[in-house]
């Protein structure tokens, strides 16, 4: 850290001592941290994921006929979001709940890891083969959409793809050497939203 940056941090630290008394007084008592628990809203993404699974199972015939059954060909099903797919995997048991210390990034097995809602643990979805990892890598950054800072702030949960050899990347980050971690589930500020192709692939792993 440069001398200037340290001096500026000192000034900021001092200035925090001058904030409004009401803010300081408010912080004398801990607020209730609401734990995100199961609620009715979780049924919606589960229902959406189930519908998508049915449509995929019905094959091309379902994909052609259903739009006409519901007011014509221009009615298009919305693809599931990454959040809904991960919720479904967490609730449905496709992913394993574990603590950070139980996740071995050097196990030789690739997988997808994401934070639990309460921030106390993680969910791990292991890939079953090299082929799956190869397909996932192909979809990881392709078609990802860049997002602005405000949207990034709204993305609370963190998700990583672990290659099994210590390499860790995130579908929320652009493809770049600086965005590759090694040996840890690093925190980050989201830069992109992964493509529908990536989400559909993850969804396929959980079905």
């Amino acid at each position, binding site marked *: 850290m440069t001398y200037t940056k340290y001096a*500026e941090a000192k*000034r*900021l*630290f*001092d*200035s*925090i*001592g*001058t*904030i*409004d*008394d*009401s*803010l*300081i*007084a*408010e*912080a*004398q008592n*801990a*607020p209730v*941290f609401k734990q995100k628990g199961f609620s009715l809203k979780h049924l919606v993404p589960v229902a959406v994921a189930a519908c998508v699974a049915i449509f995929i199972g019905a094959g091309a015939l379902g994909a052609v006929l259903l739009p006409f059954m519901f007011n014509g060909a221009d009615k298009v099903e919305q693809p599931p979001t990454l959040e809904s797919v991960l919720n479904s995997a967490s609730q449905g048991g496709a992913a394993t709940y574990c603590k*950070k210390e139980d996740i071995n990034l050097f196990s030789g097995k690739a997988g997808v890891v994401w934070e639990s809602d*309460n*921030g*106390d643990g993680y969910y791990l979805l292991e890939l079953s083969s090299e082929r799956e990892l190869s397909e996932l890598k192909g979809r990881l950054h392709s078609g990802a959409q860049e997002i602005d*800072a405000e949207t990034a*702030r709204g993305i609370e949960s963190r998700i990583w793809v672990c290659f099994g050899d210590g390499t860790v990347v995130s579908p929320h980050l652009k493809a770049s050497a600086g965005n590759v971690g090694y040996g840890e589930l690093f*925190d980050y*500020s989201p830069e992109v939203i992964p493509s529908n192709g990536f989400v559909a692939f993850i969804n396929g792993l959980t079905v």
Partner: protein
Amino acid sequence: MEDLQIVDLYWARNENALQQTKIKYGRMLTGISLSLLQSNEDAEECVNDTYLAAWNSMPTERPTYLGAFLSKIVRRLSISKHRARGAQKRGGADLLIGELTSCIPDRRSVETDVENRALTDALNRFLRSLDEQKRYVFIRRYFYSDSVGDIAKSCRISDGKVKTVLFRTRNALREFLEKEGVAI
């Protein structure tokens, strides 16, 4: 005893004000000072200096939030003591420079005061823009100097969650200050 009643005792120059202050806020003030100084002796000294400063300032001050008012004093005193102690420990040039600061004329200009007020104002706005939980974690860490573990215990969340909240809030503060063009 309510804060307003204690403040009334100060205004009436009733020494019971100090006793009531110790009962209500002694532990909190000691906690803040100890977190910053890591020394029981020095913390006790700062807390006692805080009581003296409170006695000397009321009247004319009539704080609405007595706890916050006292916390600011003890925090400021503790930080000054920490820096003075640090210079003394380092010795040599740092100690001599510290002694010479009293020779430097007070160059506090109107501009510096305006900048300081702007920074405080920006911090207030930033903190109010946060949700209650993030605000609590940030203030407990950087004003009250609580440890991550203590914050996690009081909120009943994990240490990791506290660290994540702090990391993200610091980044958000940086972006906020850059966007506001606030000079530090």
